[in-house]
């Protein structure tokens, strides 16, 4: 992978593994490449947390402590940064993290109905994971695609123009 693009996405994948080896082999290589792009180690914090989350699905205290060690930071510092950013999950989430935009653009065009339908079909409450561990439905602020409401992000995929009537199909497609 070219070092210019090693910064991983903090988004989820369905195949997350909370115990994935993170600082070994190819990931260690990637870590070194990340470091090579910044004048100091602290600047690698977001890219490294992103990589950790993409792989493990959430940032456990152990993960954050390990990241802190590798970057010569304190665990408390890493936690304080991680808690600032909404994409970092500080608790485990379901296989599919379904984030529905409720920003003004989507709200005007029926985002509320989409959320309601999702909660009904996944039998969950907002932010909680379904009993089978499959779904976590969350509301998020503007996803930057306001002309195509309602915008939904499921793990690392974005769906546009989702209406309440499309929700059944969307969940089918995931499975």
């Amino acid at each position, binding site marked *: 992978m*070219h*070092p*210019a*693009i090693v*910064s*991983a*996405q*903090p*988004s989820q994948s369905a195949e997350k593994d909370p115990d994935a080896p993170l600082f070994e082999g190819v990931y260690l290589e990637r870590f070194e490449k990340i470091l090579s*792009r*910044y*004048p*100091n180690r*602290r*600047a*690698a*914090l*977001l*890219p490294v*947390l*992103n990589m950790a989350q993409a792989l493990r699905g959430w940032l456990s205290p152990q993960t954050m402590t390990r990241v802190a060690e590798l*970057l010569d930071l304190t665990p408390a510092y890493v936690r*304080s*940064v991680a808690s*600032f*950013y*909404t*994409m*970092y999950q500080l608790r485990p989430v379901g296989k599919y993290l379904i984030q529905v935009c*409720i*920003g*003004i*653009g989507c*709200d*005007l*065009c029926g985002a509320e109905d989409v959320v309601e339908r999702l909660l009904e079909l996944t039998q969950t409450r907002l932010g909680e994971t379904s009993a089978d561990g499959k779904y976590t439905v969350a509301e*998020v*602020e*503007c*996803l*930057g*695609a*306001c*002309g*195509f*409401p309602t915008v939904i*992000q499921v793990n*690392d*995929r*974005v769906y546009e123009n989702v209406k309440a009537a499309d929700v059944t199909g969307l969940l089918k497609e995931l499975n």
Partner: protein
Amino acid sequence: MAYPHEHPHETRLLSKHFGDEDAVRIDAWIERGGYAALKKGLEMTPDEVTQVVKDAGLRGRGGAGFPAGLKWSFMPKDDRPRYLACNADESEPGTFKDRELMRWTPHQVIEGIILASYAIQAQHAYIYIRGEFVDVVRVLNQAVVDAYERGYLGKNILGSGFDLELTVHLGAGAYIAGEETGLLNSLEGRRAEPRVKPPFPAQRGAFDMPTTVNNVETLAAVPHIVEHGADWYRQWGTEKRPGTKLFSCCGHLQRPGNYELPLDFNLKDLVLDICGGPPEGRALLAVIPGGSSVPIMTPAEIDCDVSYEGVEAAGSLLGSGGLIAMDDSTCMVRAVRRMVEFYAHESCGQCTNCREGTSWLANILRRIERGDGREEDLPLLLDIGANMAGRTICPLSDSAAVPVVSSIQKFEGEYMAHIKDGRCSAVR
């Protein structure tokens, strides 16, 4: 697939290739004239590149409208490392233009970044892109790798002796990381808390070194200006605001999407003609012309040109160019509540007036919307709003009060219907 909607009244410079799936590939981009401006620019001196951008009158497209060439000329010319940060954090509700620029024309953005970096003699450029832009990042990453492979990035670019590294840096969800000093803190691995200015980024920016922060759309305009010259660029727009601008249009419209217009275009024509106005059978209730941080306009106010001055004279601001239209099915109190909740959620919490003010506004609006409002609530909202303006580290606090204050001024009836009669005046 063609880009959802195009309109014959548009002037497509930056968005010419939206919808053209091939244009993301470097060969196809070069066939379409891509990277010609880079060759030309690298034969000029850095100061000449800055000068042509100054002469063209290009203003920043990220919201504040600061002249781009002038900003570049503030970069000290000493031997410290210098950085360029491309602001691709786009998260102002209603704005979705940078995403489309990167999604459809990543090389246009990269070429602009290289030219700007050359002008300020930066050694490293970072694209700070919001972490939520998953599909866009895939396209952008490929384009960056291809640009390296062709020698447009890296050492001795096109034999000019100019070296530049470019790194795509992903955020992790924070609107305030779009504020330029919040961005710099975030890039450095900190909480994205805005810094007190001065010092400005040109003096002490990323890693304490001189840094220029420019919006994606600003940078995307640079290759066009370098290639064709300042006079050519000035054929569009107004004397003070030359050129074209992308307008992201959303909400209750028949044809939402991004449209590129010269800055002397009429706002009403944009809403009613280009976007087709509200859906069949609906009447227009309000327009927000520049993202959720600018004053709400009534339909009677929108007969003005879309230049920054034109919109300002009509009582609002152009901001980032994110237009939100609302028809008569809208509950104004709810819409404002939703916008204010956004700011309450995104306030970084450093300033008391912002942290407390945003959550107070949201609480009171929720109360009014539920039908539990009191008549004193309107003066109370205005009072809180007044205390939030001009007293904080960054303008997020001011922004949060704007929808509240402007909607009370212009749509008081809707608030009073909730407060007095416990009902909403929206037409369902």
